[in-house]
């Protein structure tokens, strides 16, 4: 078969969103590698410009276009591929592929679906077909009823008996699903679910059962293997993406394990998968009873995790099987000698922990359930469960040091907090143990298997023993070793002995480190070799553990390696873009003849693919672990500037230990990071900045505000609840925010800055060598300042800046680069109003927009920066942004639909989960492509407008007129309606939710699906939670109606779709923009 295929189309998953994140960059990249090495041409459609798969040299042709049937068909018509791969771009690609199959497009263009046939995909996606299919082979499923209206949903639930679970068919990872204990709850959830899908499933809930998954592979010769099984720490009821997951399973006996394995193979054979799929089970903790929850006929988050957990490259193998290979044709890519037809044997345990960022959202529901809310995850490897979970809890990077020795959590009702899990559940368990709860009590409240609780209790016991000591010397060797074997960090040990008296945590931790090294208690390095050491493997996939006496690798000590620190868990503000940066750094290091070493722990990334570097340490990015590795590795130097803020924050401490930090010095990094120092430097070189002050009393704050005037930006150093930053427009807002959100005191001061309204925000991404700028890119936000730069829509090259503004920005950037003697990547953010330029922030590291500007400009900024950091000569590229005949737009992807109750409004704190970058011949074309790529649709007919304050109404006027001229029906709330009337634009008055009894009601129109798009601009920047606006915005999100909340972005989008139609959009590949 592979001989007949010359060209293959692969669909990506688009922007990162909750439920579909970096794992698909990893699986897509692997698939592309597998296919390209066969000499087959590859075409990739993915608007996610920050991914590794859309980089030079990964696919032959890349289209930064939406992954929708409309665009994919056009690309097929143009490229005429022989085959298409649907399994590597998540649910987005799968749904798109099914639609293309059903509409006959694939047949029309004679495109063969490689791997699992579409019929098999449909058998797994459509619940009724799925149940029928599994009934045929006597495999038990969770019986559910598919209903098409609310009345039937109510009847089905009554028949099954509450509690029931509601799911929308064909939805991304549990979107629009949830548990209902009674009919009231069902009514609410069912309506929401129907907004996502015409078909909704009602089924009996099996809360409290174990949740177990198997990753299964099958070739076209019917050979099957299960590569990995995984067990959820949290029982059924919590979405697997929200659950702590352990691989391999821990509480299953041999009978349990192989019963489910045998079923998984029976299922995959019967459905007819060719490639990879996962089977999820509910498993009775009191018998061998089971139910199949679902089968995903594609690569998934779990398969990425399984690949990293075992070293078995599932996506790579699945792609080869799609081309027609048998598993027996392929080699185990770790040992290179044994067969790919085998099942990995692990000699370690891995623990996945989700990362949530719920604190960033106003009003969000923190309770975990059957719908996914986490934005990233970590994977920790250890040779005891205690070690793995404590590592993992540090890796999630939310200020926790492990299972114990953390900042005290305030939990008013522990019983309730155990029963109703939130993102902090694991720490509630820790607290409960300390409060005297027994394993059985916690088990009763959480249904977490006792085995996990027993292991956690071991950690508590060890903590108690440590706490009984008050000096390091009092800790016995045996206790010290046991603590390390159980994953205690030096910090935790220090905190346990010194308790509140510990003043200098860094010094105390260092003392512990020295002491245990003196006792010879140090970690060893072990390989992940897929076969538990049964066969020799030259693998470079490594982790550290204290359960061992011998390193698996030998160290040359030739100082010819370079360590790159990765970016850790994806989170809001740091995601796939830093993975791209890390991978580019690794590539450059290798190309220049050094050995590349990566430290990272994010299973969703390409940088943690063991063939991306010469050595991969899948381990923590804490000071302690990084030092452990550096002491073994003895590298030439360390790169801290391509992994975002986590490595950047380590610079000073590493420097103190005389680690060679390549590029910009740690001192310069500190000078830019430290607000006081940076500000003083700007003053010294005569560069303007918005006025700010660190203040610790209300009187001082008032005094400062009197000087600079409202609005002001307030950043508390200690956040009580809600978002960390806020803009306050008047005295009342200021006082309310400080009272509710921040506790102002000497110990917890706030930073108050002047906030300049209606100001443009401009980004300078650049690379410098010894203080001289070698390459730069200036881009401009479409939104005015006030929208976080990570949420803003960015145009590059800048389209509407004065030449004088650009000149000043370049001049200031040069001054700063020189003053900080920058060698490497950096980013400066500017405010521009008129020709007045102010610096708001400067980061001496790669920024979020590096892959975007690099790919639009087609100059790899990280490669340049890495060469500089390696001390190699670089030439200033001749090309610059002013030569471009096209424009790139980077737009943000929001996941508000996953975050129940959160206000979908943009502010100074970042809330987007991903981004796309599209290229167009002009701004409108690029805007249209990018907005369609983040899920907006061109409205058909009816648009609801509420355009905020007077200034914003004016800003929206032209756009409103365009809409009216284009024949759209405008519906407007009171003030907006009046304003449009005054300006001669026809609109229909609709009423706010608070205007009860008046018709037509805006909310009702939304629920009746009479509105195709909502533009709702909040009146001011401190959004109250229960306002009219919130209700409209939230309804738009819950009902899946396109929503825009910013006047300038709305205007740009409206202009784009009023002047261009879908068919005007150019189907041009990245190569065609020259």
């Amino acid at each position, binding site marked *: 078969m592979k001989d007949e295929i010359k060209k293959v189309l692969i669909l990506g998953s688009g922007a990162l969103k909750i439920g579909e994140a970096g794992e698909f960059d990893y699986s897509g990249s692997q698939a592309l590698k597998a296919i390209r090495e066969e000499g087959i041409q590859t075409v990739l459609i993915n608007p996610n410009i920050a991914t590794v798969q859309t980089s030079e040299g990964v696919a032959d042709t890349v289209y930064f276009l939406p992954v929708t049937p409309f665009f994919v068909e056009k690309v097929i018509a143009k490229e005429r591929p022989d085959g298409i791969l649907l399994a590597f771009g998540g649910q987005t690609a799968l749904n798109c592929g099914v639609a293309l199959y059903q509409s006959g497009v694939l047949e029309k263009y004679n495109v063969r679906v490689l791997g699992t046939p579409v019929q098999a995909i449909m058998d797994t996606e459509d619940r009724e077909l799925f149940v029928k299919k599994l009934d045929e082979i006597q495999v038990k499923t969770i019986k559910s009823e598919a209903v098409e209206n609310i009345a039937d949903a109510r009847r089905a639930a009554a028949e099954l008996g509450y509690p029931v679970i509601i799911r929308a068919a064909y939805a991304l990872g549990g979107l629009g699903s949830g548990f209902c204990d009674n009919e009231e709850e069902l009514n609410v959830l069912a309506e929401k679910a129907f907004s996502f899908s015409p078909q909704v499933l009602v089924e009996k809930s099996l809360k409290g059962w174990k949740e177990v998954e198997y990753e299964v592979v099958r070739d076209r010769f019917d050979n099957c293997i299960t590569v990995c099984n995984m067990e959820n720490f949290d029982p059924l009821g919590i979405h697997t993406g929200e659950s702590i997951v352990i691989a391999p399973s821990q509480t299953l*006996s041999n009978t349990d394990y192989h019963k489910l394995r045998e079923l998984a*193979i029976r299922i995959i054979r019967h459905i007819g998968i060719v490639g990879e799929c996962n089977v999820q089970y509910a498993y009775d903790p009191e*018998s061998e009873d089971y139910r199949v929850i679902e089968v995903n006929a594609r690569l998934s988050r779990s398969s990425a995790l399984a690949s990293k957990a075992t070293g078995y490259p599932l996506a790579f193998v699945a792609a080869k099987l799609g081309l027609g290979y048998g598993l027996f044709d392929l080699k185990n890519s770790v040992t290179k000698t*044994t067969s790919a*037809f085998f099942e990995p044997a692990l000699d*370690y345990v891995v623990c996945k922990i989700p990362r949530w960022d719920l604190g960033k959202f106003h009003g969000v529901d923190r309770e975990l359930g059957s719908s996914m809310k986490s934005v990233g995850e970590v994977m920790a490897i250890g040779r005891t469960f205690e070690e793995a979970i404590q590592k993992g809890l540090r890796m999630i990077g939310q200020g926790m040091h492990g299972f114990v020795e953390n900042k005290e959590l305030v939990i008013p009702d522990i019983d309730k907090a155990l029963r109703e899990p939130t993102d902090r559940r694991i720490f509630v368990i820790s607290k409960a143990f300390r409060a005297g709860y027994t394993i059985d009590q916690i088990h009763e409240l959480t249904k977490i298997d006792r*085995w996990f609780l027993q292991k956690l209790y071991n950690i508590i016991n060890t903590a108690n023993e440590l706490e009984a000591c008050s000096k390091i010397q009092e800790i016995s060797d045996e206790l010290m070793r046991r603590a390390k074997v159980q994953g205690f960090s030096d910090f935790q040990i220090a905190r346990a002995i010194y308790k509140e008296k510990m003043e200098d945590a860094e010094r105390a931790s260092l003392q512990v480190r020295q002491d245990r090294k003196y006792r010879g208690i140090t970690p060893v390095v072990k390989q992940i070799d897929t076969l*538990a050491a049964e066969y020799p493997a030259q693998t470079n996939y490594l982790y550290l553990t204290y359960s061992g006496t011998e390193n698996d690798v030998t160290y040359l000590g030739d100082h010819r390696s370079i360590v790159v620190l990765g970016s850790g868990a994806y989170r809001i503000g740091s995601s796939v873009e830093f993975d791209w940066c890390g991978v580019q750094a690794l590539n450059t290091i290798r190309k220049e003849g050094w050995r590349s070493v990566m430290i990272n722990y994010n299973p969703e990334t390409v940088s943690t693919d063991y063939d991306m570097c010469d050595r991969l340490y899948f381990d923590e990015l804490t000071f302690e672990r990084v030092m452990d590795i550096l002491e073994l590795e003895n590298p030439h130097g360390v790169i801290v500037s391509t992994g975002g803020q986590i490595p950047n924050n380590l610079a000073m401490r590493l420097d103190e230990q005389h680690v060679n930090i390549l590029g910009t010095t740690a001192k310069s990094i500190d000078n830019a990071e430290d607000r006081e120092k940076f500000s003083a430097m700007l003053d010294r070189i005569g560069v303007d900045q918005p006025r700010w002050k660190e203040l610790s009393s209300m009187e001082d704050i008032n005094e400062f505000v009197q000087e600079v005037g409202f609005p002001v930006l307030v950043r508390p150093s200690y956040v009580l609840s809600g978002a960390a930053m806020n803009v306050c427009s008047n005295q009342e807002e200021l006082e309310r925010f400080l009272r509710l959100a921040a506790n102002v005191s000497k110990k917890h001061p706030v930073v108050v800055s002047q906030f300049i309204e209606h100001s443009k925000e401009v980004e300078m991404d650049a690379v410098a060598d010894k203080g001289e700028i070698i390459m730069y890119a200036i881009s401009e936000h479409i939104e005015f300042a006030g929208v976080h730069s990570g949420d803003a829509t960015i145009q590059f090259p800048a389209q509407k800046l004065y030449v004088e503004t650009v000149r000043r920005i370049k001049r200031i950037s040069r001054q700063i680069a020189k003053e900080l003697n920058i060698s490497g990547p950096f980013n400066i953010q500017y405010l521009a109003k008129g020709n007045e330029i102010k610096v708001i922030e400067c980061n001496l590291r790669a920024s979020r927009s590096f892959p975007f500007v690099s790919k639009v400009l087609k100059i790899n900024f990280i490669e340049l920066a890495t060469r500089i950091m390696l001390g190699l000569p670089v030439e200033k590229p001749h090309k610059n942004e002013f030569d471009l005949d096209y424009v790139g737009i980077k737009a943000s992807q929001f996941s508000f639909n996953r975050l129940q109750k959160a206000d979908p409004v943009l502010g100074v704190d970042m809330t987007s989960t991903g981004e796309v970058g599209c290229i167009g011949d002009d701004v409108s074309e690029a805007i249209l492509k990018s907005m369609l790529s983040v899920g907006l649709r061109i409205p058909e007919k009816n648009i609801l407008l509420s355009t905020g304050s007077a200034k914003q109404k004016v800003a929206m006027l032209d756009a409103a007129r365009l809409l009216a001229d284009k024949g759209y029906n405008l519906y407007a709330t009171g003030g907006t309606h009046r304003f449009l009337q005054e300006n001669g634009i026809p609109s229909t008055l609709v009423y706010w939710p608070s205007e009860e009894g008046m018709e037509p009601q805006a909310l009702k129109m939304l629920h009746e699906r009479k509105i195709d798009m909502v533009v709702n601009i909040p009146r001011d920047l401190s959004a109250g939670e229960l306002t009219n606006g919130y209700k409209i915005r939230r309804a738009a999100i819950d009902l899946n109606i396109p929503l825009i909340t910013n006047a300038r972005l709305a205007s740009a989008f409206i202009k784009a779709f009023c002047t261009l139609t879908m068919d005007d959009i150019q189907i041009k590949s990245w190569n065609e923009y020259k």
Partner: protein
Amino acid sequence: MQTDRIATLILDDGTTFRGYSFGYEKPVAGEVVFNTAMTGYPESLTDPSYAGQLMVLTYPLIGNYGVPPRTFQPNGLSTFMESEKIHAEAIIISDYSREYSHWNAQCSLGDWLKEEHIPGIYGIDTRALTKKLREHGVMMGRIEIEGMDNGELTMDNYGEVNYVDKVSCKDILVYSGEESHSFGIDTPAETLNSQLSILNCQLKKKVVLLDCGVKHNIIRSLLKRNLMVVRVPWNYDFNHLDYDGLFLSNGPGDPDTCDAAVQNIRKALAGDRPICGICMGNQLLAKAGGASIYKLKYGHRSHNQPVRMVGSEHCFITSQNHGYAVDSETLGADWEPLFINMNDGTNEGIRHKTKPFFSSQFHPEACSGPTDTDFMFDRFAKLL
């Protein structure tokens, strides 16, 4: 807290590994072998093929789900185990779960070991130990417990001991469904044959099972196919019995110590009644057919051994536990390899070119391990 005694594993080459005792405290010696399976310690410990061996588990977390009840079915077969008792000499692991959690668990692994007088050590870098065994090949080793008189342990060379004789049944045991009956080995053939036909009122097919240390799941697998099983000691001459098929079981040690069995099997090869063998059974069948056996450097002990059916595209994941292998090159002209190992190309089964004789080196009965090759029993039953 730490009250466990220090226990040390000393390999024949002098390497020592220090850990803690969690089982019965006594010094012990044996051949040190590693197993990479991630589940199934109760099944492995009771597998008679581990007689004389110190079992190292590479999966570090052991004891998690405790030990199931040591109950027996009415026919005398263990409900959850593979024999009546632990056969391994000791178990060597990294991290021991003192506490366990499973609905079917009756006690902890440590308590079971203590009861059956079997030592266990935890806290060992089992990966380093495994690499050692892999590089050097399997070695003899001994476990010493701190503070005990460890004396001078006499270590027999593993290959010279007839372990099969130690673990094989002593009487003739007849299984049919839920029932079982026992006969002395000196029962005259005629009496035995008539007894068998009386017991076989349902007219089931009769299978003679040559017990070299049979795992109970082999018997269960045969019974499940509605067969009558006549389990005979390893050196019993079954050729005078009335039977429909012959099944050769797994077993411990060097097949070269089992010449009596080979002679008896060779007689059966003259006939046409179906013969099937597993593991040791594969080796004995091969020897009876004229092939020779050699010792592998460190054997195959795991749940993830890939085998391919020769001349086909059918591959299977198998459970294995063997230290010796059939030399395919020495197979007689009437024989051919049936399966080969996809990792190292060693023989995984043979078949006769014309007669219904076939066998596998792997364990189709699983327990512990994958169940993919259960069809071997179906094929055998169908031939009868």
